[in-house]
């Protein structure tokens, strides 16, 4: 606890130093204040063969109010830095939406008034910038997003002073994975392996079938795009607790992308891969080839959109998907132009997914 407080104090200090630097530039009057931060996104993402994950490159962005376009951005970063300092000073936590509200404002005069934030996205970007400026991950300065990751199975967590047993019966609801992951400690894990699925609907179906008890598994989901806490939890289970991790997502380029978030990271968070990525995770399904091998009825298949196809073509070109297996799957998709969701197995009956498809895939990969 006091370790936490100490880290908070350090963050406050870092923010004050940034403010000071701006101040000096302005008061000396010699140059526009400016600072460089790591560029994030696809054009500063590098595949590391050694680490087996996406890592951040060396490009930086010059933040300074020197052009029309950059004036609002610079101001937003400064204002958000101050808001984070305030939050820490008040010893509170906030969601990213809370930070947006706390810094809501307008600029301009009577005749020409506009919003300080064009939308919450701009505020989210500013929070990211504060992370990059201070080198402190968001969780450490108590800004979290809404929890969406879920976990079920024989695992015991401690959050603050509370013990949370996720090993509940098939009727109970899964536990949310706290987004203030720095406060979470894994006390004990009894499971043999961890199975991550893309969507909570699917997780729910699997759980209700008694899968956890039967196979002694932990079920997790990020409910779509996983938040950082979910990714970090997966990583810890795999690397600290040495539990094999398998991932199942929908058979479409977006599902595949989500599955790969766990295994190799993402372009937008490549600067934080070291904390988030689990290179030993196995992406097992749902493969495009499964559509045909498991005989998904045609009505449950969906026609790929142009957007899907473009995305698949993009993915085919990525260095980290040059593996024959992925190329084969992507080519199959581009040829048949059919995609499919895991839920589609429900057409074979509500138990087929959990009792036939998953065990078979797990056996094939040697997990069972």
């Amino acid at each position, binding site marked *: 606890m006091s370790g936490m407080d100490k880290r908070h104090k350090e963050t406050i200090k870092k923010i004050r130093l940034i403010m*000071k630097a701006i*101040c000096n530039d302005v008061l000396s009057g010699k140059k526009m204040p400016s600072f460089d931060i790591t560029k994030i996104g696809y054009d500063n993402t590098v595949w590391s063969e050694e680490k087996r994950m996406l890592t951040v490159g060396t490009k930086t962005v010059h933040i300074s*109010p020197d052009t029309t376009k950059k004036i609002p951005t610079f101001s937003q970063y400064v204002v958000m830095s101050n808001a984070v300092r305030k939050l820490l000073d008040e010893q509170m936590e906030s969601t990213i939406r809370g930070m947006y509200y706390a810094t809501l404002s307008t600029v301009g005069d009577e005749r020409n008034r506009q919003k300080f934030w064009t939308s919450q996205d701009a505020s989210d970007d500013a929070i990211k910038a504060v992370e990059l400026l201070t080198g402190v991950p968001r969780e450490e300065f108590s800004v979290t997003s809404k929890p969406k990751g879920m976990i079920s199975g024989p695992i015991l967590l401690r959050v603050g002073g509370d013990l949370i047993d996720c090993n509940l019966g098939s009727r109970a609801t899964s536990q949310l994975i706290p987004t203030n992951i720095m406060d979470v400690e894994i006390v004990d894990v009894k499971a043999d392996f961890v199975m991550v699925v893309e969507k909570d609907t699917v997780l729910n179906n699997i759980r209700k079938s008694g899968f956890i008890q039967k196979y002694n598994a932990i079920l997790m989901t990020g409910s779509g795009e996983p938040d950082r806490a979910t990714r970090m939890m997966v990583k810890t289970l795999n690397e600290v607790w040495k539990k094999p991790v398998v991932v199942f997502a929908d058979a479409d380029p977006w599902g595949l992308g989500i599955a790969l978030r766990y295994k190799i990271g993402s372009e937008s968070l490549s600067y934080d891969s070291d904390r988030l990525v689990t290179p030993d995770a196995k992406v097992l399904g749902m493969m495009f080839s499964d559509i045909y091998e498991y005989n998904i009825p045609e009505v449950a298949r969906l026609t790929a959109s142009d957007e899907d196809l473009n995305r698949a073509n993009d993915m085919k070109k990525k260095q980290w998907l040059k593996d024959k297996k992925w190329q084969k799957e992507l080519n199959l998709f581009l040829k048949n132009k059919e995609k499919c969701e895991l839920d589609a197995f429900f057409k074979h009956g509500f138990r087929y997914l959990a009792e036939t498809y998953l065990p078979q895939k797990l056996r094939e990969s040697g997990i069972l």
Partner: protein
Amino acid sequence: MASSRMVQLGSSSVIQTKSKAKISFSRKAESEFFVDNSALAGFTGERILYMAIRELIENSLDSCEAERILPKIAVSLKLIDPLNDLWAISCEDNGIGIRSDKVSVAVCSFLTSGKYVEQQQRGLFGVGLKMIAAFSTKDTDHPLRVWSKSAEETSEYYFELRTDIGTNKPIVLTRRDTKPKESTIRGKSGFRIEAVLRGRLSPITKNRIHDYISQTSIVNPYAVISFSTDDGMITFDRRTNIMPEPAKEVLPHPADMDLKTLKKAIGTHALQKTTIQGILCNSFQKLSFDKAKEIIRNAGIEAKQADKYSEHELIKIVNVCRQTKFQSPNVDHLSPIGERIFTVGMTTERTIFTKKENAISDDESQPKISTREMKPTLTGYSSRACIINNRPTIVECGLAYGGNLSYFKLYRFANKIPLLYDEGSDVAREVISEVELNKMGVSKKQVKEQFSGLESRSDRAIDLLPIHIFFHICSTKIPYKTAGKESIASEGELKKYMKACLSDLYRKVSKQIRHEMHLKDAENRLKLYKYYIPLIVDAISESIDVSAEDLTNSFLALVERHVKKGVSHPRSVMTNVENHAVPVERHDVRGQQKGSGSKETSVVTRSKKSLKMKRLDSTQEKIENFLTSSEELS
């Protein structure tokens, strides 16, 4: 006297009551044909009064320009008999007048005109005046009253005329040499006509007439045109004394030869007994004797006296000519407006409203005189000569930017006549859509960023700019899209040349426009800094111990220096925009500048005064400071 005219009645077409269909072939007088098919000349229903005014103004302008007389035209349109929809229409000019022996046929007889020559004129059919005379005769018992003082004569003559529609002959009721004290026309020469027409004037048509005169004034800024109605008088004032070089009559171009023109040429030289080669090079432009010999050789016909050739032989000459490459035709028979006059037209529009003394609506609050001027910050001009449909054609393009202009507008002219309707289907609209705005050195994004605040009807970037674009097409055969003559078709390479003109212009003004936009950007930026600095200062002074006032003052000083620097080095701000500032290139119209006496060398004119009018905010002084310094630098 009136009844004595009865003997002239009678027509070749007689109504018969037939029991059995039998086609009776009848010959119609030209006048009767045109009256019966008045739609051909645009004289239909609602349009009669509009067309009459158009035709009179165009005739007057042509008449003045023939002798480079600065036109002064007074038009009036007044309702004299509401019950019977009778209107008195009059037009007076200071042109060269019409010789007294020609007045009656010039006014009344169809297919007799001074317009039947190969040179650019406004009206081409030469039937406008005749239509007015015939309609007046047909619908009223008022004679046409005409005053003419020809440049070739000393006296002014007065006529009262009617048209014998059945024979296409004028009926001269009165003809007299007016005594000097009685004389109507004050100048050295001139022409005045008064006619009574039956017609209706809807508010739409009224606006149409006003638009027509207003735009005519833009393209003829050397003319004074006043227009009187029952509401009062509007004068579109003269803004320059320079007139364009008048069009000259030229020989036809051989690429446009047909049997008719060739035979006419042979007929003209019939008495001279020359060879066919001689006739060719004397009767067609751009045709040397050697070229003529080559043509005759290629046609494979034997040498003999020119009038001894059969049609079969002559058509071979025509066919060869149609397949031969000739030098581009000369354009002396065209009269483009030229850069100086065009620029005056674009830059100013001076309108004086004079309300009638005892106007029916006695609105005291309305001033009796008001004027309107528009002063763009900068203007540009470009032109091209080309061949469209075998006819030499000149494209002139002008551009006016900023100043009092607050929206985009396209003006289209053909042979100095404004085109008012069907803008959407005009080739000019396509040209504007297809010429990339970044030729101006600005990106669509920039334009949208800077101007999207203005009220706009469109998504297109060009429509956001405070810019007026003018196109003027001169040709003896304008490729109109419809017989309604309101829009020009994209015939042949016309579009290509129009695009080239507009591209030139964009390139030429790019430096200035970019500068204008930099000024506007600097202004925007300063404003933006002032908006954001308080937020930055608050955030900092809440976090660390610093005086908010000191920080604010230092920040303001810093950004003002920074903005100034930005304008003097525009490239640094606009690195993503391709630089089109090529060395300024002149695209003169061939043969056109010879006598225009233009002294200007730069095609882009910057009006400092109007720029000053624009800067009204508190930063004006500072901006003007760095404006001056940046101009010193450049």
